[in-house]
């Protein structure tokens, strides 16, 4: 039992170390589009419906259909002259923003006139860089030492944008990510243990609407599209067990960044499909994944609002449901030279239900590892469940409660009860307080976390 307790402490600390290094709100997008964080986030970095569309659409605002009428009754700038009509149309579109033809227009707060030379060069209008940092404090009454730990967890360089609406890009480079605390080494460990410390965590390109089709191709290092919620798409501190659990010595998790190629597309406005192949170092077999999700109610995956009757009240107008399913099949080993391979798969189903200010997230994941310790060839099956309820108390204050269940092979059954509250007094600054009550085969432990995250 004592061993389990120690394991649990280590697990919790690792969980905190890992989760608190992730900060993915991208102020670079806010600068480029001159808009606030709340356009895409509930409390950052959790995405709202429109942030999800922006991500799916390769960092471009969803356009209206061609047959939709243009602004002010469909009157668009008349295009005259020789040259490339498409290019000219784009330039007219850019110059149609204020400070152009409207002589009396004061300086803009809402929109920024586009620089033609920058646009022609394919460059973003602003330098697409931002920083994100995390500080935190944790209290673990069961810890053998350092029960109260105040630490500077992470600093990341983030970049993202799109070139001429065709090529999206995203970068996350960890400048610093604090590793596990070891009093024998230092009170301020530097990049000592985090898997992505001082490293390129994500860098990918998205070729949008390839050859005029709805298909986007994504290439580079990124987290494969499996669960509905990317690792950073959350308001609490800890990660969901359904996507973050590990088995034996295998370092694989469903939300690990991979070097991969992915094709994804929105079909019929409400169906999202993604499939990809992964190439990890030393890999000698096919490895890939697939995802499908369907949205019912709310705005569609092009951010088009539903047709509502403004004269009649209906609770259904405030609801939406997204159902997603995924699968991943792969093989890994302890080191490149080893012949001891672990064939594994992961599969899962997620539900995201929203009604007014209440959001419910349900997730189920199942996995199998045939040789997770790279030696014994003992197969382990894993089941994990998550049920979470988020309630937005005010636009800057959100409370949540999560229950997690995790059972892996002959290992202990771990249950977590996690209440948390997240407050963003300024949209780019968030304070989160999270409490974890954990039972491991009947043994109890508790952990309190306080995290401050800022992005600028």
């Amino acid at each position, binding site marked *: 039992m004592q061993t389990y307790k120690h394991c649990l402490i280590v697990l919790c600390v690792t969980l905190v170390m890992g989760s608190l290094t992730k900060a993915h709100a991208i102020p670079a997008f806010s600068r480029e*589009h001159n808009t606030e964080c709340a356009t895409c986030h509930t409390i950052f970095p959790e995405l709202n419906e429109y942030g999800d569309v922006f991500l799916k659409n390769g960092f471009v605002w969803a356009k209206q259909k061609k047959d939709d009428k243009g602004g002010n009754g469909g009157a668009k700038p008349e295009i005259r002259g020789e040259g490339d009509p498409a290019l000219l149309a784009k330039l007219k579109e850019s110059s149609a923003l204020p400070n152009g033809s409207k002589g009396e227009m004061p300086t803009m707060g*809402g929109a920024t006139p586009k620089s033609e030379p920058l646009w022609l060069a394919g460059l973003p209008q602003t330098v697409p860089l931002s920083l994100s940092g995390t500080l935190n404090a944790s209290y673990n009454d069961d810890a053998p030492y350092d029960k109260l730990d105040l630490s500077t967890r992470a600093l990341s360089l983030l970049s993202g944008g799109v070139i001429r609406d065709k090529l999206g890009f995203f970068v996350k480079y960890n400048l610093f990510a604090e590793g596990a605390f070891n009093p024998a080494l230092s009170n301020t460990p530097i990049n000592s243990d985090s898997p992505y410390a001082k490293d390129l965590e994500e860098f990918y390109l998205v070729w949008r609407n390839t050859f005029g089709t709805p298909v986007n191709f994504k290439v580079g290092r990124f987290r494969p599209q499996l669960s509905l919620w990317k690792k950073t798409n959350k308001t609490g501190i800890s990660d969901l067990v359904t996507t973050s659990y590990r088995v034996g010595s295998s370092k694989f998790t469903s939300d690990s960044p991979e070097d991969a190629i992915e094709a994804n597309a929105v079909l019929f406005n409400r169906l999202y499909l993604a499939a990809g192949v992964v190439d990890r170092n030393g890999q000698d077999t096919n490895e890939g994944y697939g995802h499908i999700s369907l949205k019912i109610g709310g705005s569609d995956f092009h951010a088009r609002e539903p047709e509502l009757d*403004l004269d009649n009240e209906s609770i259904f107008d405030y609801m939406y449901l997204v159902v997603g399913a995924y699968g991943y099949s792969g093989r890994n080993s302890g080191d490149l030279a080893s012949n001891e391979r672990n064939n594994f798969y992961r599969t899962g189903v997620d539900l995201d239900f929203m009604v007014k200010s209440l959001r419910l997230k349900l997730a189920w994941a199942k996995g199998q590892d045939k040789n997770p310790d790279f030696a014994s060839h003992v197969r382990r099956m894993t089941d994990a469940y998550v049920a979470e309820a988020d309630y937005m108390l005010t636009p800057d204050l959100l409370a949540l409660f999560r229950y997690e269940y995790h059972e892996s092979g002959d290992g202990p059954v771990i249950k977590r009860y996690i209440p948390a509250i997240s407050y963003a007094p300024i949209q780019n600054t968030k304070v989160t307080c999270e409490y974890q009550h954990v039972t491991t085969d009947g043994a109890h432990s508790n952990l309190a976390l306080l995290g401050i995250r800022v992005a600028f």
Partner: protein
Amino acid sequence: MRLTKMMVLLILMAFAATPAVAKIKVVGKGDKMNFDASQIPSDLKGAYEIMKVKCIQCHTMERTVIAIQTGIAPVTGQPFDKQATKAYGIKMLRKPKSNMSRDEVKQVVNLMNYLIDESAKP
């Protein structure tokens, strides 16, 4: 004499027929920018008051003014027409904690449509 009377009458009619407002004026600059309240018709004053209070919970009125004057939504660069006003109204209605009722959204959408029409006048 008859001709003089006719001319006087015509001059008086010309003064009386002066257009009320060709275009809604904008007052203030930056985050203080807003439509000139004195030019909003009386039947839309209530909607104007709602817009003035509710919309600025999340963004300045400047954004609305720019969208209506240019016909382009400042953030997305997409057309801001009567179809868009309803879509934005629905978006704000569904937005958690937007604190806008259906009736308020309807009134504000009507006001924005009126302002779009006014803005389109030469």
